[in-house]
């Protein structure tokens, strides 16, 4: 069967340290009959959306990406642009909503970018989870041949999939979209009260201790509610929760390590894709191999 083509925005991190997220995403999408094609000529999304109202410069890169998607979307006949990284999703979606609401801003940007055509506003930026929900979780269930029976997973959404309200992929205080997916994969989902709390985000660069404190709290609570592993979708949350366990362990004697995985990796395992070229477990600071051994 020929694979359906769909545009995909990888972002810088998936091309580098988060190879495990990219490869597991592409592999699982292929199982579902989709070929994710990298948006030709994509540029950086800027990671955080500029909040200063008197400046339009922070929106330029995002609108330029949206214009590229608009042109390429016409070629392949699908206006959906799938982002996997939470930050990329948040930025592209927010930029789209922002310029649709403030047409003056869009006009300024269109005049500034004279080489590109104008942005028509028809790009549907989606997160991979939204794409999967639209595809149908019941249809995904048919592809599961290695159900994760008995694996206790704490779903962790972080901030940028749920906030602010206009970009939320689900209810911001009590999201369930990842739970639904994980249950279809056969995993046992624990009720994780901190699933929408911040991990400390970019402070990991200059205030590592603060992030380690957040990690200590997030991981300890996940252990208290009985999780074996935390599933996330954001490469920055992944890095903070995974790598900062080192400092958390040094500071707190009662701390126990817990492996962090991407939800796409769990999906790949449930689909029977267990190769190292898909999972890249060598990129984890806390290796999930031991916990996931029964399904590997």
């Amino acid at each position, binding site marked *: 069967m020929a694979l359906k083509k769909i545009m995909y925005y990888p972002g810088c991190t998936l091309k580098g340290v988060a190879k495990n997220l990219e490869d597991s995403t592409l592999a699982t999408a292929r199982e579902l009959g989709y070929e994710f094609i990298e948006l030709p000529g994509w540029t950086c999304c800027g990671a955080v959306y500029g909040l200063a109202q008197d400046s339009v410069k922070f929106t330029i890169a995002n609108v330029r990406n949206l214009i590229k998607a608009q042109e390429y979307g016409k070629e392949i006949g699908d206006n959906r642009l799938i982002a996997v990284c939470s930050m990329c999703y948040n930025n592209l979606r927010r930029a789209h909503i922002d310029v649709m609401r403030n047409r003056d801003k869009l006009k300024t940007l269109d005049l500034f970018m004279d080489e590109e055509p104008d942005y028509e506003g028809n790009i549907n930026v989606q997160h991979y989870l939204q794409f999967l929900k639209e595809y149908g979780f019941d249809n995904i269930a048919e592809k599961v041949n290695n159900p994760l029976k008995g694996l206790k997973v704490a779903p962790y959404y972080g901030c940028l999939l749920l*906030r602010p309200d206009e970009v939320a992929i689900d209810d911001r205080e009590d999201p369930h979209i990842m739970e639904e997916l994980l249950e279809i994969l056969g995993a046992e989902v624990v009720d994780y009260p901190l699933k929408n709390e911040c991990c400390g985000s970019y402070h990991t660069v200059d205030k590592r201790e603060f992030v380690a404190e957040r990690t200590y709290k997030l991981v300890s609570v996940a252990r208290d509610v009985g999780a074996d592993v935390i599933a996330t979708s954001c490469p920055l949350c992944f890095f903070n929760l995974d790598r900062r366990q080192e400092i958390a362990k040094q500071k707190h004697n009662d701390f126990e390590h817990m492996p962090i995985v991407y939800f796409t990796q769990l999906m790949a395992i449930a689909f029977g894709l267990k190769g190292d070229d898909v999972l890249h477990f060598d990129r984890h600071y806390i290796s999930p191999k031991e916990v996931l051994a029964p399904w590997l």
Partner: protein
Amino acid sequence: MDVIIHGLSLDIPLWNIKPPRLVKEMKYTIKKDPHQDERVQEIIEISGQNIFSCYQCGRCSSGCPMAEFMDVLPNQVFMFLQEGDVDTLLKAKTPWICAACFTCTVRCPVGLDLAAVMEAIRELQLRKNYDYVDPYKVDERDILPPIALVSNFRKFTP
């Protein structure tokens, strides 16, 4: 003498209870008309938020994941702004500790975007070419994900 509050007897008299840390350490001056203050107006312009609509419900501070590391709580930021005391906020750590997670923004009952106000306070300094983080002195450059570096430098450098 015992003091009884809500039927609970306190061993120490009320006047011996220490005031909260912030009140002790931070002094603020009330200006004549904060509405006319140039820097308050600049913060309003950059953030696009009417800071005078805050009525101190405290919902922002109670949900803030970074509040434990802050010296001025998010609701207190608005207290200082409404009194025209921008100097305290420029000296405070809080705007540099906010992680822009938008928990307060989505929960604010009057719809204030607190993350944008924090950004405006940072911008007041950043636009004068102030570097909060020196990109040349960052450790772990090879293992940090690019989004961490990009977002950090976007928030903390001009």
